[in-house]
């Protein structure tokens, strides 16, 4: 594997939240290649969120190292961390949109990492940035809602705004922390179809937590299983069987 292809690499990565507590992530070793679509499975508390959050430096490691886009996150300054985060999109279970702002305004905030703060505060966006924002709004099918306040959207629509906000970053990696856990099965399926399409159109490296094995098997190229902070499965959906499922959900 060339350095180019290697987007993310965790080496002996451990996260310990409180001294004396069991590690939330235990000696994880894995490599993510450019263009993979990965689902992370595990019970509640298995460490899925922690794993996702180590990748964009929302969660620092206590041991080991994590390299993202050829940078070791441990040694970075605050400014460098911001620039790495600007290249990684993230969507959330509870969407985490900015209330009181419109759909389009929320999408604009996705550009914040690429621009000076004063321009963000004054809300100065170039015509090209406006075009980009509207482009992604139409990709998620919400262009007609551009001016609507986000509180007035359904859950599925809110997650689409979340996805447009992440995509407008033009990210090299897209992370999702249980993005469909608050949505009904049909909407969840639509969201995964959208994620899959965005992934295929631009070979976007995508890593998403789910607790639904069916969804993961249907959409992922690769599945990572966590149990109490340990990596217990790493393979193709087809490689999963009763025994491996047992090791994840025992």
């Amino acid at each position, binding site marked *: 594997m060339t350095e180019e292809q290697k987007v993310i690499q965790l080496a002996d990565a451990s996260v310990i939240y409180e001294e004396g507590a069991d590690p939330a992530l235990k000696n994880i070793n894995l490599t993510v290649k450019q263009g993979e679509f990965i689902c992370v499975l595990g019970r509640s508390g298995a460490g899925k969120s922690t794993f996702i959050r180590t990748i*964009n430096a929302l969660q620092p490691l206590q041991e080991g190292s994590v390299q993202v886009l050829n940078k070791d996150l441990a040694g970075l300054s605050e400014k460098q961390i911001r620039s790495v*985060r600007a290249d990684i*999109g993230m969507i*959330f279970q509870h969407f985490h949109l900015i209330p009181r702002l419109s759909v389009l305004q929320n999408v604009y*905030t996705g550009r914040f990492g690429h621009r000076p703060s004063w321009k963000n505060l004054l809300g100065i966006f170039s015509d090209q940035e406006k075009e980009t924002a509207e482009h992604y709004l139409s990709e998620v099918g919400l262009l007609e809602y551009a001016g609507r306040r986000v509180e007035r959207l359904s859950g599925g629509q809110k997650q689409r705004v979340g996805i447009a906000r992440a995509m407008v970053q033009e990210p090299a990696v897209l992370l999702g922390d249980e993005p469909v856990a608050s949505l009904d099965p049909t909407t969840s399926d639509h969201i995964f179809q959208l994620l899959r399409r965005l992934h295929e159109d631009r070979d976007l490296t995508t890593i998403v937590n789910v607790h639904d094995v069916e969804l993961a098997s249907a959409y992922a190229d690769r599945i990572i299983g966590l149990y109490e902070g340990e990596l217990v499965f790493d393979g193709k959906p087809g490689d999963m069987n009763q025994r491996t499922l047992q090791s994840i959900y025992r």
Partner: protein
Amino acid sequence: MVWIRKRFIVYAVLIAAALVLSGIGSEFSLSGLLDQSNTIDFIRENFASLQWNLMPYLLEQSLITLSVAFLGTFAALLIALPVSLLAAENTSRSRAGFYGIRSFLSLVRSIPEIVFGLVFVASLGLGPFAALLAIFFHNVSVLGKLIAELVESSDKGPQEAMMSVGAGRRAGQIFSILPQIWPNVLSHYFYRFEVAIRTSLVLGMIGGGGLGQSLINYYNSFAYESMATAIVLIMVMVIIVDVTGGIVRKRVI
């Protein structure tokens, strides 16, 4: 008496004792409470013949009172907003800074506005500017603390989202926190503005200008009918601000 525990009897005795002592301290008298004929006479005599010719002058004075309250609290809000980010545990850069600013705000808040007023009247001279400064400083400390508490209890989700897009620390905080707390900020602001109108009247009485000063001048020169006119104007003003505040709050929330 299954509802009553022994502990309650002790509390009841303590509260009763405190009530009796307070009655002595405040020279409470039942006959004084019941016999309000003097008060009623006072109201009947003076409020019956309001001095309408004073209205233009008193309206001008009430504008001064309103200006002091509005500028004092609005400027305080503008300062309190950024200060609150430094005074909230989740947004301050350092623990030392957080404790330092919180303590400083508490210290300023513990000084009654009238004390500020007396100091500024003595140092800057009579007039509304002294009242303005007194209201400003007090409200920076009050609003600073109230808004800091709103910041602390705000939903962390949007903050995390702004961190994850790589937004700058402060810009990210402003975007993720301010929209959430904005209705409550305005609510606190209007309440403080209403309070500031009353305070501005009291500060007028110690030389801070405006309607309060007119009121105390009439009082001191036994011009009770003029005083009654000023009081009516005060009531109208407070009611108008109260109603307007209610309307604006409803529109924002």
